[in-house]
């Protein structure tokens, strides 16, 4: 790359950074209107879920229904009901 072009590009990069608004980007501006370079006109952003992984490793997933209908993840999930599987003392009745 020619030195003059290189210098123009670096100048462009710094100018681009300095001209960036200090205001936070709003979610609505992340969709079709926002693009990186000028060639990225066809790009779009799609919002995904917000809490899918937020419960991993924490205790706040209680009651969110880890078992989904239609899959095999819940096979036998009720097999311990009333059988005392969770008792620490084998003599305890539930």
């Amino acid at each position, binding site marked *: *790359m020619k030195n003059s*072009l*290189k210098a*123009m*590009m*670096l*100048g*462009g*990069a*710094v*100018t*681009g*950074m*300095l*001209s*960036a*608004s200090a205001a936070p*980007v709003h*979610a609505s501006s*992340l969709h079709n209107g*926002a*693009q*990186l*370079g*000028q*060639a*990225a006109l066809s*790009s*779009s*952003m*799609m*919002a*995904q*879920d*917000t809490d*899918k*992984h*937020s419960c*991993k*490793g924490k205790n706040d997933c209680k009651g969110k229904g*880890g*078992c*989904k*209908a*239609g*899959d*095999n*993840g819940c*096979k*036998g*999930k009720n*097999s*311990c009901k009333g*059988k*005392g*599987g969770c*008792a620490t003392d*084998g*003599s305890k*009745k539930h």
Partner: protein
Amino acid sequence: MTTDAPELLALQRRMAAAVMRPLTRDEQMRRRDENNRSIADEADDFIKPNDRLSSFERLEIYNRQYWFRLFSSFEEDFPGLRSIVGTKRFERLMRAYLHAHPSSSFTLRNLGSSLVSWLTENREYGAPDTDAAIAMAALEWAHIEAFDNEQRPALTAEEAAALDDNSRLALQPYLRLFEASCAVDDALIAVREASAGASAQASNAVAIHLVRRTRSLKPAPGQIYLAVHRHEDSVYYKRLALEDYSLLRALESGVSLGDAIEAAFQQSAIAEEDRPAHIQSAFHYLMQMGWLCTPKENDL
């Protein structure tokens, strides 16, 4: 009862080994361990029976629940992969993967961390469209990382003003770059929307219909470059031009700013006279999004 620490640790390890031991093919607890010792005898040795269940049966409850939780978490993390390989193959893939890479972290978030490399080495599990399966697994893992990877302080205007040709920049750890030869992003969004629609429906008939539709989804062919990132606690997929993707990849690799800009246009069809404007626009956006940061010492 008092138990000293070494004895408690040994008991905990024994229980963990028993609970984490793989199930049989029909999802029951194994009768024999890997050394052909009776698991019933092992259970009798440290678990009390009660009036309804033997020691073996009581242990089996925990052994099965452990694996059902892993299966459930894995299925939740990779619905797109499941839609590509189909439900039956996905079950086989999941069991083989979890056998090769059992959970070794305190959090199930990391359960699929080795899936892409494992699937790349065990391509038969991704058949018939293994490349699409690997791409989908990679996108779904990128989604997990984008959701909860670290956010560092973004580059400031003062720091930007001091940059020169030899400066180095880092990218936010939550920004994941991704490329594929098919539109797995559209396919994954369709799977998630179908799944969300199914769970929102009261009618089981509708839900089943949507699940069937999901299984038949295949990504459309075509090269894509993506930035998978987080904004205000939501994960977004942004399609990138090749130049922008190459620029970000180069910055991520730690080369100088000058070299990264040069790398952006190595395979570009953009005319030379238009490149400075393209770069200005790209860096404006990167700065606005807060994707750039100063490298940590161990990044250099």
